[in-house]
């Protein structure tokens, strides 16, 4: 008997919106988990995924991808890449793996919610694959990261970080909890898939994979490619959902979901990937700056996608265009000077040659953020290492959990937005962060930033209390990745300095 072609049975096979006989519809799909936004079920049934795949094909394809990635890893295991890698690349690997592994693994929960509670059978089908994808992404990245444990205990944080109250982890976890883990299936599908995967991670993994290949890290590059191809597929789950919302009078709700999710993920992307692109990627392998990437792929391509779906560009688009040249530069200074609060070995990334690149990509950088680096470098040059760490802690945004920053140096422009509720002041780094808070103060007001926890007594008064609260033993507190031997350029590193830095 001849097998049917996929297109002959696919639509029928995924049509699983059966009529329940033993439970009422509202118990099968309870509103908090399965918001239909008042749209009739036949409209949700029109969900049509752009990229169709059967389970048989999915399994075969994933198996092939795994074989490819693990084969490259096995073949290159003896290449000693990590030991010889620069502190730049080591810092980038440590930051990537410790921020991404668990986040991917946790995403399986959000996809599983879509699998169970979506009103669209087509989306339930796609989300099933998404659930499996995210489990795989968590596992493969932890496995690959653990290869480096024998060289560097910092990779313990690939698994450990999500269980800690480290301030960077709190920031990322709060954002992901907001858009993915505390939303109904419909909202999570739009916010996670449109706001994170379609806007950022799909494209980011392409760029990072290319950078990894240029740096000779072919294991990392192959692993990222194997993940990115999944991201590209389930990034498309959000589009049909938005289309159904817009066509059925729910544009306002869809617009708001995209605006919240996009901004929350932009802040994370800016702080983590922005620093990775503009400071941690070795200069000789850098091509695009964060700004270049954002202008082409996000402001350009994602912006066109949003409009093609019948939504408007987010109201804060002009704020975003300014933020792509400022926020991550300010945050990089903070990440460096408060380095002991991080688990990896941060890189300044501001040697004379790197400053030239930053000035070229961000005209005016030397006169603004560069001025803070002048003072830091001056202290290092004179051996005043204790003065490279501020006594005063930073003010943390009560939405994104990152520093409240503005423009430094000669064009000094302080930025601060605030809301007062019940005698408590909530600070925000940006108008959109404040806007998100004010949409639902009851949802957000109970959360305390790491600095709030210092001042309300949650964290003890002794210096070590702060680190212990964040899960950092003395050996897990970040130090300069180059042991301060970068201020005059890497070419001038003494052999002793390089040895200390590279390890």
């Amino acid at each position, binding site marked *: 008997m001849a097998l049917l072609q996929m297109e002959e049975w696919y639509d029928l096979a995924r049509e699983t919106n059966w009529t329940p006989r033993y439970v009422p519809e509202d118990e099968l799909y309870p509103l908090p988990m399965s918001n239909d936004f008042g749209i009739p079920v036949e409209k949700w049934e029109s969900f049509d995924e752009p990229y169709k795949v059967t389970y048989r094909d999915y399994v075969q394809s994933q198996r092939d991808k795994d074989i490819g990635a693990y084969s490259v890893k096995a073949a290159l295991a003896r290449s000693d890449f990590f030991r010889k890698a620069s502190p730049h690349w080591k810092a980038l690997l440590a930051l990537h793996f410790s921020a991404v592994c668990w986040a991917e693994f946790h995403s399986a929960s959000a996809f599983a919610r879509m699998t169970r509670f979506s009103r669209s059978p087509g989306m339930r089908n796609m989300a099933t694959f998404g659930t499996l994808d995210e489990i795989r992404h968590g596992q493969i990245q932890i496995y690959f990261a653990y290869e480096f444990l024998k060289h560097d205990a910092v990779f313990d944080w690939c698994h450990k970080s999500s269980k800690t109250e480290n301030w960077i982890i709190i920031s990322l976890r709060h954002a992901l909890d907001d858009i993915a883990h505390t939303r109904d299936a419909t909202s999570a599908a739009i916010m996670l898939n449109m706001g994170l995967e379609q806007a950022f991670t799909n494209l980011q993994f392409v760029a990072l994979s290319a950078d990894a290949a240029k740096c000779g890290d072919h294991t990392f590059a192959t692993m990222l490619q194997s993940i990115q191809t999944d991201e590209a597929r389930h990034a498309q789950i959000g589009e049909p959902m938005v289309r159904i919302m817009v066509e059925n009078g729910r544009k306002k709700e869809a617009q708001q979901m995209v605006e919240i999710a996009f901004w929350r993920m932009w802040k994370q992307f800016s702080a983590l990937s922005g620093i990775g692109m503009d400071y941690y990627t070795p200069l000789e392998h850098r091509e695009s700056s964060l700004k270049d990437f954002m202008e082409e792929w996000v402001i350009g391509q994602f912006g066109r996608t949003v409009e093609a779906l019948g939504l408007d560009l987010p109201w804060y688009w002009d704020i975003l265009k300014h933020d792509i040249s400022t926020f991550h530069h300010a945050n990089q200074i*903070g990440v460096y000077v408060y380095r002991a609060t991080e688990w990896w070995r941060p890189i300044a990334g501001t040697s004379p040659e790197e400053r030239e690149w930053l000035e070229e990509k961000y005209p005016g950088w030397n006169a603004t953020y560069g001025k803070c680096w002048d003072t830091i470098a001056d202290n290092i040059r004179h051996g005043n290492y204790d003065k490279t760490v501020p006594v*005063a802690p930073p*003010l943390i945004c009560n939405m994104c959990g990152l520093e409240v920053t503005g423009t430094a140096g000669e064009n000094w422009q302080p930025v601060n937005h605030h809301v007062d509720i019940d005698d408590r002041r909530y600070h925000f780094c940006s108008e959109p962060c404040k806007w998100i808070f004010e949409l639902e103060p009851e949802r957000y007001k109970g959360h305390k930033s790491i600095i709030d926890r210092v001042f309300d007594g949650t964290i003890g008064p002794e210096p070590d209390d702060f680190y212990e609260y964040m899960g950092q033993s003395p050996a897990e507190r970040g130090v300069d990745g180059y042991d301060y031997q970068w201020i005059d350029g890497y070419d001038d590193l003494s052999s002793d300095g390089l040895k200390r830095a590279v390890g």
Partner: protein
Amino acid sequence: MADFPLAVNVQGDYGYKVVVVDSHCTIDEVIKTAVDQIVSVLVAPFPEEAVLRARVHGATRPLDGSLTVREAGFIQMEALQIYVEE
């Protein structure tokens, strides 16, 4: 006497910091505390003749330097800019 956290951004610095003062401190003492913690760490020293003032974030007028934190009616974590008077 009570610890009173304030958010301060010293001219030239990249962002706000949290500085703890006593509620009986004057604005001039707040300025001195902030400068001690930020200048020469993230901001180059100001010229000796520079006169530093403080203003509430968003305000245009400087605060009276002799006013205490309590008298100013600040809420905890009030945001202050510290800048060189022109």
